[in-house]
């Protein structure tokens, strides 16, 4: 990512170390940003309770929580907490933020994985097709489709899919992650993973997995098409780019067919930018997950974030957003490492 100009030809190990160390300033910058954005105009207790409590009680609560100290002192304390892995405690129901993550994070993870699967299945073949028939009308249609995929707000595509498939056609469930009976069975498991795909298999009930998957279809498609649009565009542009290079001409002159040229020769190099973009997509998926989970009542981190928003628990909101910042930084690190393992040019 950063500092390419100062790169020495140190090889993979050096790259891994440098890239790993970069996580820390990234996290530091993001939590600092969130902290000051939240605090620059006041404290979260006044923001949520101001006008609803008598002034002296409000002042008392602010004092107890330490929000009357100078902002720099609070900031130092906050960083100290974070170093101990403590992201704070929700104000409304006194849950540690890390508990919120471990309880609901698996649901969001599961949704993100489903969405990525949809994105790959839809985006990559269509992108190759668009590159193959480029600058004809079919290509124009595919490009408009890509724009529609990523420019349609999730809450609208979600509502439309719900209206058509759940309300009008009655073929898919309206909301939730599983039927009540299946959820009850999964709660009886000794160590539920929280990943319903796995838990449903462990119940031993043959109807459990289809039920879980049926509930996942609409949220996964809603969130997945967003990324599918980006993939379509990216694959198209990159395959067209590689199709213009000399080695493709060489392969063509050896008699390799156009179909094989696009799907093999031009596609492989085009994969690398896609892997890099997946890292950025994680951020979009997390933002999108808030809206998707709200639309489909999918009880993950995003749904919880919205729940705390409605409860005006801004301490919880700050905690969850800071935690998501850390997750984004770590995931981007992992993606960069994968990209470096695949493509030697990425390494410093």
């Amino acid at each position, binding site marked *: 990512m*950063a500092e390419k100009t100062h790169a020495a030809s140190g090889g993979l190990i050096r790259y891994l170390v440098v890239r790993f160390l970069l996580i820390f300033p990234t996290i530091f910058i993001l939590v600092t940003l969130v902290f000051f954005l939240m605090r620059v105009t*006041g404290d979260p207790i006044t923001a949520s309770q101001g006008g609803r409590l008598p002034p002296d009680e409000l002042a008392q609560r602010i004092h107890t929580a330490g929000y009357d100290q100078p902002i720099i002192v609070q900031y130092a304390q906050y960083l100290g907490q974070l170093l101990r892995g403590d992201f704070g405690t929700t104000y409304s129901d006194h849950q540690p933020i890390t508990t919120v993550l471990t309880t609901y994070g698996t649901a969001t993870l599961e949704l993100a994985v489903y969405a990525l699967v949809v994105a790959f299945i839809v985006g990559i073949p269509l992108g190759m097709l668009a590159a193959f028939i480029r600058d004809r009308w079919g290509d124009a249609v595919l490009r408009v489709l890509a724009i529609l995929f990523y420019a349609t707000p999730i*809450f609208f595509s979600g509502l439309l899919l719900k209206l058509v498939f759940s309300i009008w056609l009655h073929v898919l469930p309206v909301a939730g992650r599983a039927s009540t009976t299946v959820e009850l069975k999964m709660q009886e498991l000794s160590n539920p993973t929280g990943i319903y795909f796995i838990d449903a298999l462990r119940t031993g009930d043959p109807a459990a997995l289809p039920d879980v998957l049926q509930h996942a279809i609409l949220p996964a498609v809603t969130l997945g098409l967003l990324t599918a649009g980006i993939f379509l565009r990216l694959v198209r542009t990159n395959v067209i780019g590689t199709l213009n290079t000399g080695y493709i001409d060489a392969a063509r002159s050896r008699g390799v067919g156009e179909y094989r040229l696009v799907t093999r020769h031009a596609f492989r190099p085009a994969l690398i930018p896609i892997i890099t973009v997946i890292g950025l997509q994680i951020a979009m998926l997390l933002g*999108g997950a808030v809206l998707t989970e709200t639309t489909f009542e999918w009880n993950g981190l995003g749904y919880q974030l919205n729940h705390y*928003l409605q409860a005006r628990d801004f301490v919880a909101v700050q905690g969850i*957003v800071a935690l998501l910042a850390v997750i984004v930084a770590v995931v981007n690190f992992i993606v960069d490492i994968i990209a470096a393992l695949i493509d030697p040019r990425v390494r410093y």
Partner: protein
Amino acid sequence: MTAVPAKPRGTWLAKVPVLRELRQSVGVQRFMLLVGVIITLVYILVALLAPVIAPYRFNQLQDASGTFPGSAAPSATHLWGTTIAGYDVLSRTLYASQTALMAIVAAVIISLIIGVLLGLFSGYFGGPLDRILVVVCDAIYAFPSLLLAIVISIMLSRGQSSLWSGIMAAALSISVVYVPQYFRVVRSEVVRIKAEAYVESAKVIGAGNGRVLFVHVLRNSVRTLPLIITLNAVDAFETLAGLGFLGLGIEPSSAAEWGYDLQKAVSDVTAGIWWTALFPGLAIVLLALGISLLGEGLNDLADPRLRRRSAEANEAALELEA
């Protein structure tokens, strides 16, 4: 969007940024660009003329013949039906283009100015500040903008927005994410350009830093910006809508906003009432489509790998016939 110093041919019309690209383009690319331009222009017109063309005010609940019915299906008096509260869907959808346009203008101006200036100075002067800015921008630009928007809107408005604070929450949060994008693009161009011979020649003949920066470097480093500007614009009004959908949006009495109306439409959909969700949603999609087509069209023409020229287009046509 500074015009690239083009060869002086034709009238002044040939130098207006988007028109110039339209003249250069051919075939499918020209069609897509043209559609984008038309949709965008229509929205600007609708936003300006909303008070004239909308049948009612966005916050109107009754007229001479009495109070509007709630959740009424589309009819002659309410072409797109009414919401559960009794607002006219057509009027609110039209008026909301004003709100969206304001968010777009605010977000693009803020991010463009800050991002380009930072990129320009950072890339040109280098030094430790440059390195710090690079790390900071790398850290921020991968962050989900909607989450930032939530945080900012809480603090700007305590969760209940007037028109102004709602728009600023969307515009500021989008700027936080887009400043790094402008910064990265402009900075890398500046780093490349400052080593070019014409910059050195300018220095040799005694041009000061200010003149070199703003006359020579700036002009040549903003060519790739139109695409980012269009992405920035789409994200700006969609973030505003996202905030509205999460209930952090603008109160219906102070302005019309598509996201707020869609949030109210969630429960309607379960009851089979489709018109309250469909029309504001389509309004968002169409505007996003128009601006994106505009952006992709401009990008195609700026990227020689993707550009088609007339001669090539002829070849392609021959291939098709063969």
